[in-house]
Every structure is written in structure tokens, then in C-alpha cells.
């Protein structure tokens, strides 16, 4: 176990390992996404209250779940990079931020589109949507801070500090937005909660959540590999790999 973690910190080893991993995981992800989408779009029955518009749940909820998890991945990588100064942790954090931001944006856009047939407007200051909006700001803050520094080592450490503070803050933000929403909104507008969801709708949703997690890992690895090729362009192991190809 420990040797595996140590190997992860070594760029040449990680580069080869991630290459094999991506070659397997990318097709698996595509298949999972296809099966999940077809299941959710065509096979699952419609919701008795919302009709067919609920089918957006199969991308909205997975995107939101993975976007939130992505912030924790980023903050964890930030902590590792601050404490042990491991270059690979910097690269992970750098790669996770834009991926997480895109997933958050997808959750927001699909939520807005879902809102139109459900509530009659494109945008509702619903607790979940508002929390996602703030999460998007948190992600954009990290991306913008990284771009603003010219020294990229310092940029990674600054982003690590910011994302750690953000991570501590996220539960507080979610809870406070929840309270804020329940105080201001009449109880008549409410989502049909996932807890009451029928298994014929739940299984494709779970499948899609797994697929989005795989997608997150794949894009994270692809971004990290592209970053590694450039930052280690002058080192021997990469030259040899390039020469052999």
C-alpha cells in the first residue's frame, strides 16, 4: 500500500501507470455513460408528477455530486502539496479545478433547464441551485488565482491554502443556504426528494453517478498527463518515452 502511494508521487511511474489506466477507463466510461443515458432517457418510466422532464435528473444529479466531490479531491491534493511539497499533488490540484468548474456549470445549466417545465421559470433561487452557484464561484476563484501568479509553484501553494479554507467553509455554506431557503420559501414548492424515488428510476441514476465519477477520473488523468509531458520535457525518462514511440 505504502509503496503504491510512494510510486504515485514519482512522475515517470505515474505517467506509465496512468497511460494504461486511461486506455481501459476511457472506453468503460463511454459505455457506462451510453448505457446510463439510454436507460434513463428511454427505458425508465416517467415521473407521475413531473412527466418526462425529470429525465434531466440523470445528468443533473451526477454532475452536482461529482462536482462537490471534485472540490474535496482538489483540497485534499492541496493539503498534500502544502505538507509534503509533492509535485504530483500540485499537478492534481491544477487539473481538478477546471474539471470541477465545468461539472458545476453543467449542474447549474441542467438545473435551470429543468426548472422551466417544473417551476415555469428558468432560474429559481432554490437552495440546491444557489449552493451550486457558490461552488462555481469557489472553483473559479481557484482557477483565477492560479492564473494570476506567474510563479507556478507559488500559485499551487496559494491555491492549496484557498481550497483548504473553501473546503472547511463548504459544509457551512450548504447548511446556511439550506436554512436561508427554508425560511424564505413557501413549503408548496418542493422537489420530489430522491429518498422517495422508485428503484426503476434509481438504478440508472446510480449508474450515471458511477459513470460521472469515472469521467472525472479520466479527465483528471488526461489533464495531468498533458501537464506532465510539458513540465518534464527536458528530463531523460520522457525523452526516452518520446524516442521509443
Amino acid at each position, binding site marked *: 500500500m505504502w509503496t503504491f502511494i510512494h510510486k504515485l508521487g514519482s*512522475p*515517470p511511474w505515474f505517467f506509465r501507470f496512468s497511460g494504461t489506466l486511461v486506455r481501459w477507463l*476511457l472506453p468503460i466510461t463511454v459505455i457506462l455513460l451510453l448505457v446510463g*443515458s439510454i436507460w434513463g*432517457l*428511454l*427505458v*425508465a*418510466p*416517467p415521473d407521475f408528477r413531473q*412527466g*418526462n*422532464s425529470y*429525465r*434531466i435528473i440523470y*445528468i*443533473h444529479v451526477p*454532475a452536482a455530486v461529482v462536482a462537490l466531490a471534485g472540490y474535496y479531491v482538489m483540497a485534499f491534493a492541496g493539503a498534500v502539496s502544502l505538507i509534503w511539497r509533492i509535485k504530483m499533488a500540485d499537478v492534481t490540484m491544477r487539473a481538478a479545478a477546471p*474539471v470541477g468548474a*465545468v461539472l458545476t*456549470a*453543467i449542474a447549474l*445549466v*441542467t438545473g435551470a*433547464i*429543468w426548472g*422551466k*417545465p417544473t417551476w415555469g421559470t428558468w432560474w429559481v433561487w432554490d437552495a440546491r441551485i444557489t449552493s451550486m452557484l457558490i461552488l462555481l464561484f469557489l472553483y473559479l476563484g481557484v482557477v483565477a488565482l492560479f492564473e494570476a501568479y506567474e510563479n507556478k509553484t507559488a500559485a499551487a501553494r496559494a491555491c492549496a491554502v484557498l481550497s483548504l479554507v473553501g473546503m472547511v467553509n463548504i459544509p457551512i455554506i450548504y447548511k446556511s443556504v439550506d436554512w436561508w431557503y427554508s425560511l424564505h420559501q413557501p413549503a408548496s414548492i418542493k422537489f420530489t426528494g430522491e429518498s422517495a424515488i422508485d428503484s426503476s428510476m434509481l438504478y440508472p441514476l446510480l449508474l450515471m453517478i458511477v459513470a460521472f465519477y469515472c*469521467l472525472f477520473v*479520466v*479527465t483528471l488523468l*488526461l*489533464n495531468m*498527463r*498533458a501537464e506532465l*509531458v*510539458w513540465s*518534464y*520535457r*527536458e*528530463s*531523460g*525518462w*520522457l*525523452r526516452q518515452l*518520446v*524516442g521509443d*514511440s
Partner: protein
Amino acid sequence: MYFESLAAVWHMDGHGFYVWLAYTLTVLPLVIMVWLPLKRMRQHWRWLQAEQRRVAAGTETPAMGSDV
């Protein structure tokens, strides 16, 4: 299979526009998100290959290499 025909899939009892719009706006950024790092990687890789060919041909001195 819930739907009877392809037209019903497209229409989705009036919600088709929203559902397909949401899926389109998800698939497009996801495809771009996977494609961009692949493209960047390929560009870097080609650039490095070209550099090695130039070095082998003797038209350029190799950059200082440090083994990591």
C-alpha cells in the same frame, strides 16, 4: 422500453425540448473537456518528437537534460 416510437422519444409529451437541450448542453462540454487535454498532449508529444529528430540530424544542440 417506455416509448412507442421515435417521434414519441423526440417529443417526450411536450418536455422533449428541455430534456434534449439539457443533454446536448451536457455532452458538448464533456466532449470538449476530454478532447482538449488529448489535443494538448498530442501537440506536446509531436513537438518533442520533432525536436529529437532535429537533434539527431545534428541541426540543433540538445537542451540541457536533467534526469528525474
